[in-house]
């Protein structure tokens, strides 16, 4: 037993001597606990508001009432802007959904026997989770509107009168017409009949015997293009991001391997400067990540019908993404001095940043401070640049921001890593 205790004590002693191992044992889980705790704390209060644009193409009292109901429901940050501007915002990824209340919306809301109010949802293809929640809020508001209508005999009477006049005006006398008018006479009595039947407490379902209270047509917002597009356009952008993450982690390990195998010492003794050595490492990482991400999108284009909106901008995005992750590689390589440490640090840093960048958990589920923090995630900007070139149809000026951020992160990270590496190796 003493031997077992001695061996266990030795392992624990070694664990606490290994600062990086200690970090991943204690502090990393703690960071993850804080990260998810903060996120779920946000969820328990309800997720942060989903940014949507709303266009009221109907402009009636009914549509205005519906918008008021949406605003009162909470959960949506509604921006009222012109349709073309709203579509641009969705395309750029600044707004998750554009909701358009179609002409006739208000009339259908006030006369559910004749028509169903129609809404068009133009959705960012990467924001399906947010779109699902918006759809829920819209249906809930429409249901509440229908319930209010059904609970108000005076509104139903007015509607009935309108419908009666329509029938009498446009339908020739017939048995069917008489039956229809009889049904109309009974409609205002529905709430009374429900109460008399003792069903008041169980018929809270707003729609009763009607169909869905709202007809929602959902479309994906992508840039106008000649060729076909498909879901691979979004999935390949994500895959290219993971290629960069994997490549940078692998290259950071390669420096750690050089260090542990002694070849780094040989390189440092050779008649080359530290600057040349670092430039070679950076160039290799840049070449490899450029090659792998280019190979991936080439496969997407040739086999999966992914059609970038701009090849020059795609090339720019690929270059800037690779520059950024080469810098990150250099930092990772000096933090992790052994292969295991470099891999651990690499993924340990990549995963939280990917989460913060919206690569794993939809951003709208996070508290606002966390969404703001996400702006420091290179993953967010890489994805934006890739998507901008592949399907969002970014212009050069729209592409400049993510590309500039990526290059800035890359240069800063490379400088920090290179300085530290030179310092480490004397």
């Amino acid at each position, binding site marked *: 037993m003493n031997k077992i205790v001695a061996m266990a004590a030795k392992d624990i002693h070694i664990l606490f001597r290994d600062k990086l191992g200690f970090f991943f044992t204690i502090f990393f889980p703690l960071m993850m606990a804080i990260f998810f705790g903060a996120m779920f704390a946000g969820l328990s209060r309800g997720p942060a508001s989903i940014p949507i644009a709303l266009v009221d193409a109907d402009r009636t009292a009914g549509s205005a009432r519906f918008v008021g109901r949406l605003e009162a429901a909470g959960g949506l940050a509604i921006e009222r802007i012109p349709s073309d501007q709203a579509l641009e915002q969705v395309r750029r990824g600044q707004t998750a959904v554009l909701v358009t209340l179609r002409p006739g919306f208000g009339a259908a809301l006030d006369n559910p026997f004749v028509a169903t109010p129609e809404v068009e949802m133009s959705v960012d293809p990467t924001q399906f989770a947010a779109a699902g929640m918006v759809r829920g809020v819209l249906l809930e508001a429409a249901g509440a509107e229908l319930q209010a209508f059904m609970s108000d005999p005076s509104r139903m009477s007015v509607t009935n009168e309108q419908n009666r006049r329509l029938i009498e005006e446009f339908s020739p006398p017939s048995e069917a017409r008489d039956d229809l008018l009889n049904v109309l006479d009974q409609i205002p009595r529905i709430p009374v009949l429900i109460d008399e039947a003792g069903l008041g407490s169980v018929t809270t379902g707003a729609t009763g015997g009607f169909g869905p209270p709202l007809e929602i047509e959902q479309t994906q917002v992508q840039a106008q293009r000649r060729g076909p597009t498909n879901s691979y356009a979004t999935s390949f952008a994500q895959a290219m991001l993971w290629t960069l993450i994997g490549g940078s982690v692998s290259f950071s390990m390669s420096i750690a391997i050089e260090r542990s195998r002694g070849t780094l010492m040989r390189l440092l*003794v050779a008649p*080359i400067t530290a600057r040349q050595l670092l430039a070679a490492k950076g160039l290799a990482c840049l070449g490899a990540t450029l090659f792998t991400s280019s190979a991936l999108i080439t496969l997407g284009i040739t086999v999966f019908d992914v059609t970038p909106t701009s090849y020059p901008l795609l090339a720019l995005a690929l270059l800037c993404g690779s520059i950024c992750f080469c810098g990150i590689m250099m930092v990772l390589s000096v933090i992790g001095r052994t292969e295991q440490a470099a891999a651990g640090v690499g993924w340990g840093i990549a995963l939280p940043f990917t989460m913060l960048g919206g690569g794993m958990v939809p951003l709208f589920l996070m508290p606002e401070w966390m969404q703001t923090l996400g702006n420091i995630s290179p993953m967010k900007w890489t994805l934006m640049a890739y998507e901008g070139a592949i399907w969002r149809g970014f212009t050069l000026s729209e592409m400049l921001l993510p590309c500039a951020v990526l290059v800035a992160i890359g240069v800063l990270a490379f400088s920090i890593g290179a300085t530290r590496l030179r310092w480490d190796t*004397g």
Partner: protein
Amino acid sequence: MLVFDHVSKCFGDLRAVDDLSFELEAGEVFGLLGPNGAGKTTAINMAVGLLEPDEGVVRFADEAFDRDPRDAENRRSLGLAPQSIALYEQISGADNLRFFGRLHGLRGSDLEERVAACLDFADLVDVGKKVVSKYSGGMQRRLNLAVAIIHDPELVLLDEPTVGVDPQSRNAIFERVEQLRDGGKQVVYTTHYMEEAQRLCDRVAILDRGRLMALDTVPALITAHGGPGNLVVRTGDGESRHETTDPLATLAELQARQAVDHFQYLPPDLETVFLNLTGRALRD
């Protein structure tokens, strides 16, 4: 040409090298002999510019030049075989040589000639195209040494080149070092095996805890610090050991007293030199 002038290097509280001074002479194999922790590798790392001395100066100098170890021109004139095997295991032996040759500025036919010569030197011609991970430990050691001389340097620094190799491979390495000496190279050879220093080195610096205890040729060191040898004799009364500086006279004296069945003379060696200088055995 390699000069250590009152060089010291500390790591925290540990004084790894303490006031070390020596100067290499042309065409010699210079040994740094000492147990683990004596400061040999630290000295080598300062010689190649990987570490900077805290005190004193390391320089490469003769009548024509005086250069810092980090000077690029200087690095072209020295080759290092580190203590650990520093090779790219995923590529072939020949490709390792080519890569490091290119770093030293070799190109084209010059490069290929040197690669062939180094493979021959390391007796790896037949396996030159095999990946290094398939090599035995001894083959990797020989390639580790060959990489250090790919650019035909004037000075070769070998840091414990026989650590962890079998006796046969060790002999093969000794032969390569002798080849280098015969080819007119200067060699700095660190080891904690006194037989290696005794066999290979023209002069030996004995280090202990960072300090230079003695520096001279092996015979001079033994004469100065080895003390008497030991004559072991077996007679009818059993075995006895006698310290002596004149074994023949001592043997004659013993034989005059009693018939000697068997005798063996154990002359002083670097082990006894180290023991006499430090009070500890070299292997401690």
